[in-house]
């Protein structure tokens, strides 16, 4: 086990845990934002740089600070490590820079984007970004393409987190046909010559996409998310690899959309198959369990569901943290 301190909060985690996961084990504001890391996708992380933190003490044995900010999603803790996240002005400044970089070429077409309301980039920009852009140049654009008949790729919105390519590689079986072509800011997600992705699990790309670059064509423009009601539901899925545990997004009597069940960090608990996601849109297809607890701080949680309970938990937690800090001082 290793003892780590993040923003003054002490915790003990198993060796080999990353700083990000250590922070997540406690939760709250000490958790750095993560736009590319996805715990269920091997090799993910390290790219977006939103999770950069400062290591002001490397370990008990080697207390020297690390010379540069490090990506918390890919840096493992050491016993005695001291990490600064939101308590470091340097980290906040770098993060503000990263948010600006992610936004300069982003179309900011939230009013017509299906992801609005559950978009990690929206949330990130709201929390860490600047109010106005300093970017005067033209934004890059691509044409929209269909990846098969169920998924739409809107490359203008992509932040190149690479998550969907890991899904294609690791979750959706079949040939490796989805990846990144070209370099730099002209890089794009693509299948080989717009080839359809033919796999029972390809729909999970939509769930892992932190922005509205990959959307569900069977639900596109159906409704703003905050007008739909997320319900936990399950069915006996015939696919042995699929748990059949989903969230159905209802509006009135209709199911507009089916997704995986996302946790507080917007990661799905289990990947689901394309039949559950795209084909089962009738209430009678599902056993409805009850309202989904949306923990993620976003437009939806701000308007709906258990928000007050969330705040209460937070307050209790902060009170405890403040008390520990005062005791230490």
């Amino acid at each position, binding site marked *: 086990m290793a003892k780590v301190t993040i923003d003054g909060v002490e915790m003990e985690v198993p060796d080999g845990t990353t700083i990000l996961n250590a922070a997540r084990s406690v939760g709250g504001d000490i958790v750095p934002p993560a736009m590319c890391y996805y715990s269920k996708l091997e090799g993910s992380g*390290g*790219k*977006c*740089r*939103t999770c*950069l933190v400062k290591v002001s003490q490397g370990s008990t044995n080697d207390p020297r600070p690390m010379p*540069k*900010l490090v*990506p918390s999603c*890919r840096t493992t803790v050491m016993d005695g490590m001291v990490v600064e996240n939101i308590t470091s002005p340097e980290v906040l*400044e*770098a993060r503000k*820079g*990263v948010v*600006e*970089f*992610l936004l*300069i*070429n982003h179309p900011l077409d939230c009013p017509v984007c299906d992801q609005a309301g559950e978009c990690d980039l929206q949330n990130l920009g709201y929390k860490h970004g600047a109010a106005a852009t*300093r*970017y005067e*140049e033209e934004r890059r654009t691509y044409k929209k393409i269909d990846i098969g008949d169920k998924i739409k790729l809107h490359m203008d919105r992509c*932040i*190149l987190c*690479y998550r969907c390519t890991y899904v294609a590689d690791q979750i959706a079986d079949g040939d490796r046909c989805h*990846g*990144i072509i*070209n*370099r*730099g*800011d*002209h*890089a794009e997600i693509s299948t080989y010559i717009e080839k359809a992705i033919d796999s029972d699990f390809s729909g999970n790309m939509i769930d892992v996409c932190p922005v509205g670059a990959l959307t569900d064509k069977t639900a596109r423009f159906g409704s703003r998310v905050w007008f739909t009601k997320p319900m936990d539901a399950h069915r006996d899925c015939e696919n042995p690899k699929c748990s059949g545990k989903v969230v159905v997004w209802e509006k009135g009597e209709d199911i507009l959309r089916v997704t995986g069940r996302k946790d507080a960090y917007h990661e799905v608990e289990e990947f689901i198959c394309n039949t559950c996601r795209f084909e089962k849109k009738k209430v009678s297809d599902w056993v409805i369990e009850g309202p989904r607890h949306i923990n993620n701080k976003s437009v939806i949680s701000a308007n709906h569901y258990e928000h007050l309970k969330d705040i209460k938990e937070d307050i209790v937690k902060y009170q405890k943290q403040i008390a520990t800090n005062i005791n230490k001082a």
Partner: protein
Amino acid sequence: MGRKLLLEHVNVPGIETLEVYKKMGGYTAAEKAIKTMQPDDITEEVKKSGLRGRGGAGFPAGMKWSFIDKKSEKPRYLVCNADESEPGTFKDRYLMEKIPHALVEGMLVSSYALGAKTAYIYIRGEYFYVLRILEKAIAEAYAAGLLGKNIFGTDYSLDLHVQIGGGAYICGEETALLESLEGKRGNPRMKPPFPAISGLYASPTVVNNVETIAAVPHIINISGDEYAKIGVGRSTGTKLISASGHINKPGTYEIELGLTVEEFIYSDEYCGGIKDGRKIKAMIAGGSSVPILPAHLITKTANGEDRLMTYESLSDGGFVSGTMLGSGGLVIMDETACIVRHTWTLARFYHHESCGQCSPCREGTGWMEKVLHRIEHGHGTMKDIDLLVDIAKKIEGNTICPLGDASAWPIASAIRHFREEFEYHILNPEKVKDPKHFAHEPFVGSNVQNA
């Protein structure tokens, strides 16, 4: 005359052939090493020599070799980085083209020292004709029993392959190179793990520059101690410098580290002074990534000491008044050069070459290029200058690989030392519309006057 090791025989006719190379003493180091020395003894000699990596970072070669994971059951690999794509650097090409066996012998000795049975030379796509030269040399070496099974009748065997890249600067970054060599997209890897632990095919690997590897046989021939006597302090041995720009004699030169910058630029043995007797304006000492220096900081450091061609002296003053030896790509600009145009050109290069994995470099390089384009063409505003400084600052240190830093340093340093020239572009939009504006009417800022 400084001592020559790498290029001593460069003008001997036929030196590219095995026959002539051997006649000039070639492969004696390999024979001595493989027949009479233990692998660790060779690493020890390289450590004693003080040889530092010639690819840019200047990391001590012997130390890098000693990090290789000896406990691993996996095969070990030596990979030579011949991607040489940094603007201003062309020394590896010269060496490989003229004396290909120098690299082959270096690979043999170094592979033996590391216990590698397979080694690769990764060469940039544009060096296609050099690939042919190397392949010929390797075929000769195989035919003569210098590569392949039971070299010099010992039980040491080595296979050496050359792999050509697709022509991407980023594939010179060692982990991107390894990805590319494995047949994948050339994206740099996250470190740690370092290649010495998990490199090519997740096996212990050493990546070294062409010149670093080619220096090893000379160290074996003259001994590490003797090699360490050449040079000054921690800058030992000889170094190839690619000299270009507004000088009378551009070309590749071998210098003893410790030579003064003044002598290198102005003596007839090397660059032969500035073209047409014009005034010097700026110098890039070590390839396009290193900070640019203004006239008054080229031959003297900020303390008024002579600036030497060493790792330490060139970086004297940090990034405030110093730079880096880097890969030894030295570019001189005279008073007719436009620093803004030059900086824009470099920004365009880094924008084009960013792999796009991490957001600060992917987005920042393009942004900086666009702002510089605006300033150079007379559409900039004063606040663009500070914007550039801020973008550069937000990239530097926050990326996966040093390409991000390499894109930020030239811009930050150009503004640090030549701000007046950027301001001139903003204040005189009509004059700078002519792309050769300073060739007709040189811009003499305070930096040139101070020289």
